[in-house]
């Protein structure tokens, strides 16, 4: 199947190989949560809600008294994918992604400032079209910022792949299930450090470097967008406060 048309150089959804899908974000969608955000990458739509810092619920889980406990749960809505038959959470993929998101966010939250407390990050996928992991991390970053939790830097994530001898940025579901390699990268934007790196399928080393660089460029573009959204949000809050 031609994932990149040889004549026009366009992908199946009309994008160029290094073009990302349309991004859209909204802060403060869940009023009951301390912080929340809706993040869309093309057709992938994800809601993240942050509750915390609050009292530790399960004292057994609390590892030490000097840091906050970060918990994350990832779940997909029944109607989020093409076929309905799925167990929304508790299955292996959801547990793995929950772990990945938790550890990625732990790298950037200043947990030492909030000892003996707990920060819960809940992510719900409403529509899945590839790149759900990245969309969840981006939504979680915005939700944490909305909750006012101190962070080292903003974490953004993007995926890239390699099909028909071309590195492609931000794969959708069709391209992801084509069987080619899929590299997901999460970086701390300003510090320019990689916190998440996952890859499956085979890639020669120099191609891998190109694909990873492409994914990092994508992450930086998302970071730019996230900063704009946060700035807009702060201006709105300032307006409402009347200053």
């Amino acid at each position, binding site marked *: 199947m031609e994932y990149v048309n040889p004549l026009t150089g366009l992908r199946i959804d009309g994008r160029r190989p290094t073009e990302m899908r349309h991004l859209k974000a909204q802060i403060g969608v869940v009023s009951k949560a301390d912080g929340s955000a809706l993040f869309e990458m093309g057709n992938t739509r994800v809601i993240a*809600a942050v509750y915390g810092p609050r009292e530790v619920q399960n004292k057994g889980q609390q590892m030490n008294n000097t840091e906050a406990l970060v918990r994350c749960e990832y779940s997909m809505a029944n109607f989020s994918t093409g076929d309905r038959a799925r167990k929304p*959470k508790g299955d292996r993929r959801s547990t793995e992604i929950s772990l990945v998101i938790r550890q990625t966010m732990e790298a950037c939250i200043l947990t030492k400032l909030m000892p003996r407390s707990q920060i819960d990050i809940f992510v719900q996928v409403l529509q899945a079209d590839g790149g759900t992991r990245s969309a969840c991390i981006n939504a979680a970053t915005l939700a944490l910022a909305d909750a006012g939790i101190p962070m080292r830097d903003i974490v953004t994530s993007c995926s890239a792949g390699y099909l028909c001898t071309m590195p492609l940025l931000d794969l959708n579901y069709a391209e992801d299930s084509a069987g080619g390699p899929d590299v997901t990268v999460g970086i701390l934007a300003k510090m320019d450090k990689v916190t998440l790196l996952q890859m499956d399928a085979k890639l020669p080393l120099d191609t891998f470097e190109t694909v990873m660089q492409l994914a990092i460029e994508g992450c930086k573009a998302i970071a730019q967008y996230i900063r704009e959204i946060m700035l807009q949000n702060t201006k709105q809050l300032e307006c409402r406060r009347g200053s």
Partner: protein
Amino acid sequence: METTQMTEGGGGGATGIAAQMEVEAFRRLFPLPFYKRHLLESVRPDARALDYARDTTISLGPVASADGSALVKIGETAMLAAIKLEVMTPSKERPDEGSIVVEFYMPPICSPMVRPGRPAEVAPVISKQLLDVIRSSGMVNLKELCLISGKASWIAYLDIYCLNADGSLFDAALLSAVAAFTHLQIPLVSVTEEGRVFTVSSEQEEKTKFELVNKEKRKLSLSSIPFPLTCVIHEDYILVDPTAEEETVMETSITLVLDTLGNLVSIYKPGGVGLASTEIMKECITRTKRRMQELKTILEESVSVMEVD
């Protein structure tokens, strides 16, 4: 945040330290006196009158991958409903009918009370209430969900997700279910030689000649549509469309469902300290009738907005 002092005035309630305290702290520590002060003025903390419901919006078709979907917001409470149709073999006793499966989820994002490992107590209750109301109202004629009599029919999986829980959960859930059924379009279907039924998307239909079982995509014809209203009762006051805070503070709640033909579909008053006399019941029914007209208009508007697109 304001730092107005609540001084001891008429209306009873706490004395001493409550006399000099910030509003928010008073609200948390002494919720009942806080509400009593408001009820005496016939108003609620969010400046609504006692018989006014919050702003309700319905938007159809937010989930593109589902056969029918709707997003409903009553104030801050938000519900997302989606229907996916699958083919199944009907039962022998009812070979001409399809079936509906309703599932209601409260994921942890919706409320600080819900945590993984400790699911919300009300979720299965609302799930059962929804199923009962949808079945008993007869809104969906199950015979319309039939494909080939005795061999194939549709099973409609209705999944409702609560995205923000701020009171009146059943109202918003039922409204989103009704809106999703209004938006539902039954896809085109064809049969293979082995007798397996599969759905045909509109692009495929033009390219190849499948023998179609149903000639056109159609919507369900819904008869009497049920509309709900939840009220909370506190002593002699009736508050319509409570927020989550009001639901926890007040004595008891009562949910009424009326349909467009004027029949009473369901009454639900699950115990509670407050007792509902006949007058209170009649008052609630009047309020529900009014609310039903409002909701009917809002639903019709959202359908026409979608058809214009």
